[in-house]
């Protein structure tokens, strides 16, 4: 069925058959339809990579910028027009490697956006090198003897930075993924949704089956507002937890802290320069 977020002509996707990105794309569109979101108000800020191409296939506003920089662009967008719903989207290399510094600081700013990271534990677009989340021992075309670096743990990093919403999902379970995405969009403040998905072409280790076998959902009794409990979850290695791992809605968002909105709530594009005021400032200097 054609949704609001589909183009009249279905664009040709650049993904391999069987890739987890298809499921993620489908779920994102469905989630926005179910949330009744006006595509006019929605902006995708994407980086570069197979994951980041998702924005190319959604009919709405988008800024498909540089590899690694989607969070910075998203911050500029949201801070200039807080009425927009802003999604920063990319892969594990995009967000945790090239853009790692922005990842840390977007969380600290608590910019009110959803950060979707398609985590396939590999660099897909550049044909299969290790990514920051590659498991130890993964052999690639570049890490010939297997990765010996400690994998980056985005969930633990985000919680330790007191991120306001931290979740992990799996593209193989579209229903759960959709639920988590919807909660992330409705959440006020920065929301990380790290989505495991298999790269069928370059990751022969972390396959669909591997993700199925090595993950589990946090249960009803789990209190995701307890930071230390959440950290413990984040460090589990036997099986990796899925679900909303941590939630902290107490902090003010970035836009709420900005003085530019203290006396004037209008988005910046609706504002005009007051030259008289600038002239007065010069004269009073």
């Amino acid at each position: 069925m054609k949704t609001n977020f589909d183009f009249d002509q279905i664009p040709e996707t650049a993904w391999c058959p069987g890739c987890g990105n298809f499921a993620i794309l489908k779920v994102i569109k469905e989630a926005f339809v179910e949330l009744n979101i006006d595509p006019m108000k929605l902006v995708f800020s994407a980086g570069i990579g197979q994951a980041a191409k998702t924005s190319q296939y959604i009919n709405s506003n988008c800024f498909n910028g540089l590899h690694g920089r989607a969070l910075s662009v998203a911050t500029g967008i949201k801070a200039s027009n807080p009425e927009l719903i802003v999604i920063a989207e990319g892969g594990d290399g995009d967000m945790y490697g090239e853009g790692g510094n922005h990842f840390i600081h977007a969380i600290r700013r608590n910019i009110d956006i959803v950060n979707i990271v398609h985590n396939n534990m590999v660099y897909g677009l550049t044909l299969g090198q290790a990514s920051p989340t590659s498991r130890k021992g993964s052999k690639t075309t570049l890490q010939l003897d297997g990765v010996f670096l400690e994998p980056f743990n985005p969930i633990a990093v985000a919680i330790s930075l007191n991120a306001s919403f931290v979740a992990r999902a799996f593209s193989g379970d579209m229903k759960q993924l959709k639920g988590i995405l919807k909660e992330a969009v409705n959440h006020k403040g920065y929301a990380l949704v790290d989505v495991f998905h298999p790269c069928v072409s370059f990751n022969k280790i972390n396959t669909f089956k591997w993700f199925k076998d090595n993950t589990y959902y946090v249960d009803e009794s789990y209190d995701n507002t307890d930071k230390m409990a959440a950290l413990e979850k984040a460090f589990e290695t036997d099986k990796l937890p899925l679900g909303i791992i941590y939630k902290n809605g107490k902090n003010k968002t970035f836009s709420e802290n900005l003085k530019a909105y203290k006396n004037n709530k209008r988005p910046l594009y609706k504002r005009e320069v007051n030259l008289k005021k600038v002239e007065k400032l010069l004269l009073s200097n």
Partner: protein
Amino acid sequence: MKNDISIVLSGEAGQGIRTVELLIIRALKNSGYNIFSTTELMSRVRGGNNTTEIRVSNKSIQSFVDKIDILIVLSRNAIYRIENRLSENTIIIGENTFIEDKYKDGQYKIKDIPLSSLAKEVGGLIYSNVIIFGLLSGIFNINLNLIKEYISEQFSAKGVNITENNINAVIKGYDYGKNLKLAIQVEKNEEIKKQIILSGTESVAIGALAGGCNFISAYPMSPSTGVIQFLAKHSEEFGVVVEQAEDEISAINMIQGAWYAGARAMTTTSGGGFALMQEGISNAAMVESPIVIHLAQRPAPSTGLPTKTEQADLNLALYTGHGEFPRIIFAPGNVEDGIFLTQKAFNLADKYQIPVIVLTDQFFIDSYQSIKPIDFSMFKPKNYFIKTDKDYIRYKITEDGISPRGVPMYGKGYVRFDSHEHDEGGFITEDPEIREKMVDKRLRKMESISKESIDAEIIGSKNYKTLIVGWGSTYGVIKEAVEVLKDDDIAFVYFKQVYPLPNNTQKILEKAKNRIIVENNATSQFGQLIKSQTGLEFNKHILKYNGMPFSLEEIIEKLKEKK
């Protein structure tokens, strides 16, 4: 001493020399004197040796001079770095113990001031700088009530006691200064009292506001940081989103997000930070986002001399970013142009959807001048984005290369920016034909941009045989040198737009028999640009790259020998 006095304050970082500078230039200006001041720092927060030069004149001045008429010594080891600038006419004022014996052999006039004990009498060494302010005010016989007023304003927030101590301090200094009877004569001019004191930093920041800037993101780096600090101070009043980015890469991308959503955004940085922004600048070219970048140069490569001056990043700005795309580079040489050009940068960036770089340097940024009030009605800040309709496409191929830019939520269309090569709708394409069309479209903007270039300005004789070429911050010193030389054969041409070269460049340069270029760098980057674009060469190059600005004496001497 008559009509052109140079005072140098020399001391350690952390002694409050800047406070004295700001107070005294204001007091002098409001007494009817022309002033210019400039600071030369060592890169440290405490200790070392910093000097501030304050010039007081009966003429409008904007240059650094070597000569020192009055040297105020505020610490030990404050003289040796400027020893060669002293003459038999220099009056050295300072605490006896701060002045090394070798300067006391009679070649200089020394006035001992028991600064420490005077300060202690008032309440502690912390009052030393205010005593010096008083001393200078006394020397120039400035109205004492005016001085007290400034002190009250400056310190009222700190409580009655502190204000009173400072007033006592200023009076002590004042009496001392008057009693020196230095016989200073500088003609005053009532008109000057109406003028405004402005630094390079302030001119860029106020220019930005006049250009409608409502978003700034930057990572601190000397000497560029003052601009974001200034806007932070006025963030609420002017509705400016101000954010210290985690790095320059973030800053340059953040401001593109801001423009995308309809803000008017800038960043401010120095060479190293600008180098980190290169990929982002190239991105702006591809997505066709307006951006304004203030690049305040300091000596490089690498960390270089963090607090000194140089004009060696012209090539960096000129060639920044991978790929081929249009850009504009301005280089203000005085604070009027700092305001005018930064303001204009916003409009041109918006109109052409390109990077516009405002290229300054430490000397420009950290110097203060007084200027006449500016008529702001000549500024026409304008948003160029359009209200989109349902069929809006972002990268429409047009005759002048400008594709109307939409903003999300304004109108009925989707706004799709793409950093890949794209078709008119903003979708990835690898079609060779579309690729060529898009490259041509983007480059075509350069035609209109060139047409509205800001002409280079001739100062001095219209019948010149010798032409001195300068750009940016050398404006003041070359102008003053030409005025001093009063030679009918000599003129100075000032470039405030360095790229694209103004349309009158060729004509002005061709007319000269002898072309001399003055640049604060080692390889004459602007000279090379002119040569590559006009085919015209320079007979002489006056270049300086030791971290200091040119001095007036130096330029005059070099011009005499090179003419």
